[in-house]
């Protein structure tokens, strides 16, 4: 009874084997074709780069590049995009013009309006990559602005990237507003591009959010600002240092290190330092480490006695960098009966003595 069933099963497996053999032949063919294509791209690569370099050098004869683009458009496109990161100023402008001449920008604009998500993403990402060129921006028109309303996150991020290449305040503010709704990773990507527009954005867009924003929006803005790590001409953040949300207070402390040390900002830092939340105090200590604010020495010394080891260590480390006065404050804590305070002070003093004098002086 089992005999015919087994023969049937074996035949089925044999058939599968034959089908797999055919598939192997197809896969091998595909792999060898891909290998050939890669090899051809490698061979064609130097010629393409040379042709692009010649064009960028001032030779406007496009015959060779047009021929290459007709042969392998994708490779030429990749080469063009590969160039844009290495160029600046007029050369980048010329590269944009070349992309227009070869018909790529037109294609990207059409792709950006496609219903196919992959095409749309590709189109926007290419436009964003060459949006530093005025000619490309002009050709793309209001596509990036419309892209900000797309249902797909990647498209929105690329659209914001394209907008951030412009110097128009309206467009920059649009991109900033859109970035507040992005995922954390996309925000990091956009943050690095927004940094160079910090001054423009600090005129009205950022102060508006800091004044009127609430909850998540405010938190994201504060994080974005501190990720820029540059001095920011912003108004005082005194109000935010008293915000009920400890996360916002924490981010405010971090940001205070980048703002002008106005009396209000200094007071906000000291409030954070002496507040009840340990995370906020730690952030304030980190900001003080950056600002080297000697007037905060008594508050820093009191942090050693707050029964928190990380806070005591961080405060002691900052005091150790504040010259002889800081060292004296630490020495004053050595006989403290609290083992955390005395331990942190001893550790900081030991580390201070192991470093060369110019490191802490």
């Amino acid at each position, binding site marked *: 009874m089992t005999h015919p069933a087994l023969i049937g099963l*074996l035949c089925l497996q044999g058939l599968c084997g034959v089908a797999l053999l055919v598939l192997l032949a197809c896969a091998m063919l595909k*792999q060898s074709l891909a290998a050939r294509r890669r090899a051809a791209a490698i061979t064609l690569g130097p010629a393409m780069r040379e042709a692009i370099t010649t064009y960028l050098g001032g030779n406007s004869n496009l015959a060779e590049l047009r021929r290459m683009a007709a042969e392998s458009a994708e490779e030429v496109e990749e080469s063009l995009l590969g160039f844009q990161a290495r160029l600046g100023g007029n050369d980048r402008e010329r590269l944009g013009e070349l992309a227009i001449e070869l018909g790529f920008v037109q294609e990207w604009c059409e792709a950006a309006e496609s219903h196919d998500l992959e095409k749309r993403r590709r189109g926007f990402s290419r436009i964003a990559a060459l949006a530093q060129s005025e000619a490309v921006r002009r050709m793309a028109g209001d596509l990036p602005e419309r892209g900000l309303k797309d249902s797909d996150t990647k498209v929105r991020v690329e659209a914001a990237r394209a907008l951030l290449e412009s110097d128009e305040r309206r467009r920059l503010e649009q991109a900033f507003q859109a970035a507040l709704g992005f995922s954390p990773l996309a925000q990091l990507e956009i943050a690095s591009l927004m940094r160079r527009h910090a001054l423009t954005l600090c005129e009205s867009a950022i102060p508006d959010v800091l004044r009127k924003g609430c909850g998540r929006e405010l938190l994201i803005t504060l994080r974005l600002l501190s990720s820029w790590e540059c001095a920011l001409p912003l108004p005082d953040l005194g109000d935010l240092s008293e915000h009920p949300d400890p996360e916002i207070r924490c981010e405010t402390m971090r940001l205070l290190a980048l703002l002008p040390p106005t009396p209000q900002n200094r007071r906000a830092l000291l409030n954070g330092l002496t507040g009840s939340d340990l995370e906020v105090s730690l952030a304030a200590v980190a900001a003080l480490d950056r600002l080297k604010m000697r007037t905060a020495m008594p508050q820093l010394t009191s942090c050693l006695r707050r029964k928190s080891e990380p806070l005591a260590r961080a405060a002691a480390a900052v005091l150790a960098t504040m010259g002889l006065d800081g060292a004296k404050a630490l020495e004053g804590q050595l006989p403290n009966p609290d083992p955390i305070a005395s331990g942190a002070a001893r550790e900081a003093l030991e580390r201070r003595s192991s470093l060369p004098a110019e490191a802490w002086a």
Partner: protein
Amino acid sequence: MPGLALTLLWACPILCGAASLYLLLRGAIRAHHERTVAAQEEPTFLLKSRLVPDVAVLAMPPDASETSFQFVRKLAKLYFGHVEILLVLDGASNEELQAWKDEFHLLPAPRVDTHSLPAEPVLGVYASAAPVPLVVVEKERGGEGDCLNAGINLTSAPVIGLVDWNAEVSEGTLLRLICPLIDEPERIQAVCAVAPSAPARGLAARLYHLDFLRQWLCRCAGLSIWNSFLPATGSFLLLKRDAVVETGGFKRTPGCALEMVIRLHREAVLRGRRYQVRLITGPFSRPAAPRSNREMNERIAREQSATADALSRHLGTLFVFGSISRLIPGLFCSRLFLPLGETMLLALACPALLFRWVPPVDLVLLISTMAAAGIVTSMTAVLLEPFAAGSHIPPREMAALFFTSIVENLGCRQWRNIKLIGHFMRGFFCRDFRGN
């Protein structure tokens, strides 16, 4: 009657073969999807941002040989903003420590031991004077898990990287792996990169490749569909420091990373958290091809024993629902029941022939179908590799792997099954091997 029972028993491995074929296909589709969804370009913008968490990559070198030095040099080249390589020397001799000091110009460095996790005493901490972010920790012998705990105690980085000593790691791995942790910090518990090994010449390397490929497609990519992913050999794993400390740190077991991931799954399921252990399928970290048959056997033995040990510690989890309900039975099935069942059925062939339970022709056909099921599974895995992992396999190598499937299933796999059972039992029951 015994003949019919035996035939039905024999149908089990064939059905399991069909099930693994299904999982293989699902896994390939999943891996392909993961690979294409991930960003095409390297996220280099993360290099400068202050908001990217620091990462400490922990590693335990087996010795102070040139191979170990090379591996550490490779790790030091990892492309990332704030990374430190914490090398923990487990009971190293004076000569070994001196060799490390000479190679990387190590100098004593002050470090604060947080004592968050139990670990053997640290004897010294050294930092490299060379421009590499390397910190070497000398400590008393305590095993792999103990070393990892000591490393965690000495770092303040919120993200811990664990790398398999047999892994080939690409420089951009950390940049890719950190992305899910930034994007969904609350949900993602761990991120792991692992891909099939690069094709290599020699029967041992090909047999290993086939075995690993099936495991990668089924256990890694396949199980990740149900959020039941577990790391395999050659993985690069990123874990959140807080999550590791919360679960009590690493156990002193041979496969402590695997055990930790099972524990993370269990804890999250028991606490009713929305969580994910994420698999990254691009070619960022993969096991190096074994150079000899001996090396391959050693690796398989180590992995099998480690899996058995981890399973022995989580037997109670068999009755927990959620993603873990597939994970533990799946591991038992693939690492013990299937090899055991197949071996027992082959062993039953002799009495079946002797006592005429089954006609000889049927017996030959049954054994043939079992072998053919294995061949079809392996061949399918070979054909799915370029689609799933995006590997560029030279056509000749692909054909060689394809036909090695026949050799593998006509004796090699059956012999390997016997060894797998032995290693499993050793890992599951042997206390000396498991440590405490």
